[in-house]
């Protein structure tokens, strides 16, 4: 016989949850006492509930497991909202356990009461309000099932304090399986549609594979790579899909979209067949939807029917999990009597190589390296070399995020961890924390700006408490750089509230205060050696404050409004 609080923690253990990120408070105290009395589920005490959500999110992105957080009612719950919305936009599986005031006080404006189920409703996949302690095991089972299957997403479980009361005990049994009549996630794709798609692919003369976060979520990078190799088709990834196809491979065109490469965007525009897989035709990708890929027949594979034909209509829609659809496609391709049109594909590659020579991000120097100043792009390149391209890169939001996406060539999935859909500044450091918890021996990097890092900087203390040797690389351009870039481009360089007027902290001293190491780099010549020094300190948190060229913009950049995917600014003076 167990109390509600004990059942909750036991259920987490039986679900295989290894760690919970959280922060205690009144309504959660019975649960925290249950945590104290066991050893199976580890608790990580963050410094702000938003960070608990981002850490659970980072943990999930790196491992594919469901991230879990536990917070108290009222302010504890509301502090998680940005983190839940971040996970929701990027379809990250997460379970949020929020304590609630005692059930008979709900609705009375009780101390620390907020309607968590109501406030989180638009940003969750589903939510539960526990109405009796005996429901706890089955609700937990359902919560993890819903969060992790189909299109993944966050699930909130709101638990009134009285339902965790140690004085009331219940028979505990964790359900072995769940079946819900109202929730049946898509499995295999329609065989006829897949056949049609493969015929289109085999007949294509200018194909592009456009893959997204769904391939990473669906753990199907190898299948994707196999299909692309077999067909010899070019591949581009969305910001969320980076690492699904090896970044250093010849067939990889780089990221597409707003800050995608010249070759990826131009190839998309001229393509005759596009295989969109686990990608959702986001507005950062399509530019003007009516001008998107005017010559292409579009095959769209997605587990969520609501993603298909939402902004761009698909010629061959396939609702299904990437893994099974890719397997089915591969077996059809392998058994096809006639292969691809090799001559046409050869011509297509010649054209793409010509684009690469002209403006390619990786093949020509796309930024000026002749001056004294440190270019942010170069910092990412050096980071790539020093970490041998094998680190987890957790990013904040801004120019540094785009430079990292463009210049750190990800060869493996789940190594690039960033907030794409919501674009949440402050995500990077707590996410890195979650990744380091998941893999204590891994090289975990937080790439950030001096703006973003200050949004969750309190977590430096959590890093101390749990010995998490995250390396923080700050591309310090002394500005809200991404905002400033837009102000340069659209507001005649009127820098309204995007500068700090010499108010930045002394980051070295700040790191020292937390027991960490701070390194400042101002000279270009020192960059590599300081970076090596930073990564040689394996057991320490190191903050590298790299003073970069403030005037640098992120290019290419799609021309908006009314542009197509081939309309790009290539530098401050060139456009297509």
């Amino acid at each position, binding site marked *: 016989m167990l109390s509600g609080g004990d059942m909750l923690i036991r259920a987490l253990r039986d679900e295989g949850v290894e760690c919970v990120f959280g922060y205690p408070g009144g309504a959660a105290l019975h649960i925290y006492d249950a945590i104290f009395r066991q050893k199976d589920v580890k608790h990580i005490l963050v410094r702000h509930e938003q960070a608990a959500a981002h850490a659970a999110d980072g943990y999930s992105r790196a491992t594919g497991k469901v991230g879990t957080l536990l917070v108290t009612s009222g302010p504890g719950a509301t502090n998680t909202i940005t983190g839940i919305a971040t996970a929701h936009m990027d379809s990250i599986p997460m379970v949020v356990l929020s304590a609630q005031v005692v059930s008979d006080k709900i609705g009375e404006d009780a101390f620390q009461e907020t309607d968590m*189920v*109501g406030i989180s*409703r*638009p940003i969750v*996949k*589903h*939510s539960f*309000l526990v*109405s009796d302690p005996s429901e706890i095991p089955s609700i937990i089972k359902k919560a993890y099932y*819903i969060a992790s299957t189909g299109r993944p997403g966050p699930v909130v479980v709101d638990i009134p304090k009285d339902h965790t009361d140690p004085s009331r005990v219940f028979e505990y049994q964790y359900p072995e399986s769940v079946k*819900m*009549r*109202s*929730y049946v996630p898509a499995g295999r794709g329609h065989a006829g549609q897949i056949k049609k798609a493969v015929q289109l692919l085999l007949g294509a003369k200018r194909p592009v594979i456009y893959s997204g976060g769904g391939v990473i979520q669906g753990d199907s990078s190898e299948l994707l790579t196999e299909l692309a190799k077999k067909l010899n088709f070019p591949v581009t990834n969305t910001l969320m899909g980076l690492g699904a196809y090896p970044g250093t491979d010849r067939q990889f065109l780089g990221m597409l979209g707003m800050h995608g490469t010249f070759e990826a965007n131009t190839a998309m525009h001229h393509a005759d067949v596009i295989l969109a897989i686990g990608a959702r035709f986001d507005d950062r990708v399509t530019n003007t939807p009516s001008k998107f890929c005017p010559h292409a027949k579009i095959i769209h594979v997605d587990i*969520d*029917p*609501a993603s298909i*034909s*939402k902004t761009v209509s698909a010629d061959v829609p396939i609702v299904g999990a990437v893994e099974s659809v890719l397997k089915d496609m591969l077996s059809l391709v392998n058994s096809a009597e006639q292969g691809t049109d090799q001559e046409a594909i050869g011509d297509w590659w010649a054209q793409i190589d010509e684009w690469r020579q002209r403006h390619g991000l990786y093949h020509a120097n796309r930024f000026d390296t002749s001056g004294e100043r440190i270019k942010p792009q170069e910092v990412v390149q050096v980071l790539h070399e020093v970490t041998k391209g094998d680190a987890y890169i957790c990013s904040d939001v801004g120019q540094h995020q785009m430079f990292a996406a463009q210049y750190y060539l990800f060869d493996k999935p789940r190594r690039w961890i960033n907030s794409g859909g919501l674009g949440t500044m402050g995500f990077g450091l707590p996410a890195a924390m979650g990744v380091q918890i998941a893999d204590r021996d891994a090289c975990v990097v937080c790439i950030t700006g001096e703006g973003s890092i200050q949004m969750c900087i309190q977590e430096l203390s959590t890093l101390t408490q749990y010995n998490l040797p995250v390396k923080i690389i700050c591309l310090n351009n002394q500005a809200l750089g991404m905002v400033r870039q837009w102000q340069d481009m659209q507001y005649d360089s009127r820098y309204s509230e995007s500068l700090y007027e010499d108010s930045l902290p002394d980051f070295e001293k700040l790191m020292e205060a937390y027991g960490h190491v701070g390194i400042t780099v101002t000279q270009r010549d020192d960059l590599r050696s300081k970076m090596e020094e930073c990564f040689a300190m394996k057991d320490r948190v190191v903050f590298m404050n790299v003073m970069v060229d403030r005037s640098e913009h992120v290019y290419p950049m799609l021309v908006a409004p009314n542009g197509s995917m081939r309309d790009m600014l290539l530098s401050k003076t060139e456009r297509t």
Partner: protein
Amino acid sequence: MRRIVSILMENAPGALSRVVGLFSQRGYNIDTLTVAPTEDPTLSRLTLTTVGDDHKLEQITKNLNKLIDVVKLVDLSDGAHIERELMLIKVKASGAQRAEIKRCTDIFRGQIVDVTSTIYTIQIVGTADKLDAFVQSIGEASILEVVRSGVSGIARGEKVLSI
């Protein structure tokens, strides 16, 4: 175009607010909404009417289907169907008006369900158009109060919405 969407959903707390929330959150509008438990008390049947083009409606139905509480959904306007709405209407009825209103009620096959010396309360069932027509023929000047249930609908023939 006007659409009638019928939904079978879990009769659970919060289910209705998720359906309604989805509309406001995505900028869709609900014109009418009715909901009640079915013969199986664990299920509710919800009927709503909305206006939108095909693309918009497709998005609405896909997103409704995604809600965990929604078990099944059908767009009744896709096929032959029966729709009904109930109206209770309180009107001024004195003197010569009384006979006139009674006649009108008969023509629309309504019933007078409550009477005072100066007031009739009329119940009338039909399509939304029919109810509109009745309101118009009574005339605004005589109407004291109108209550409409919102549209309920069911497919014609063999088609059923059940699990």
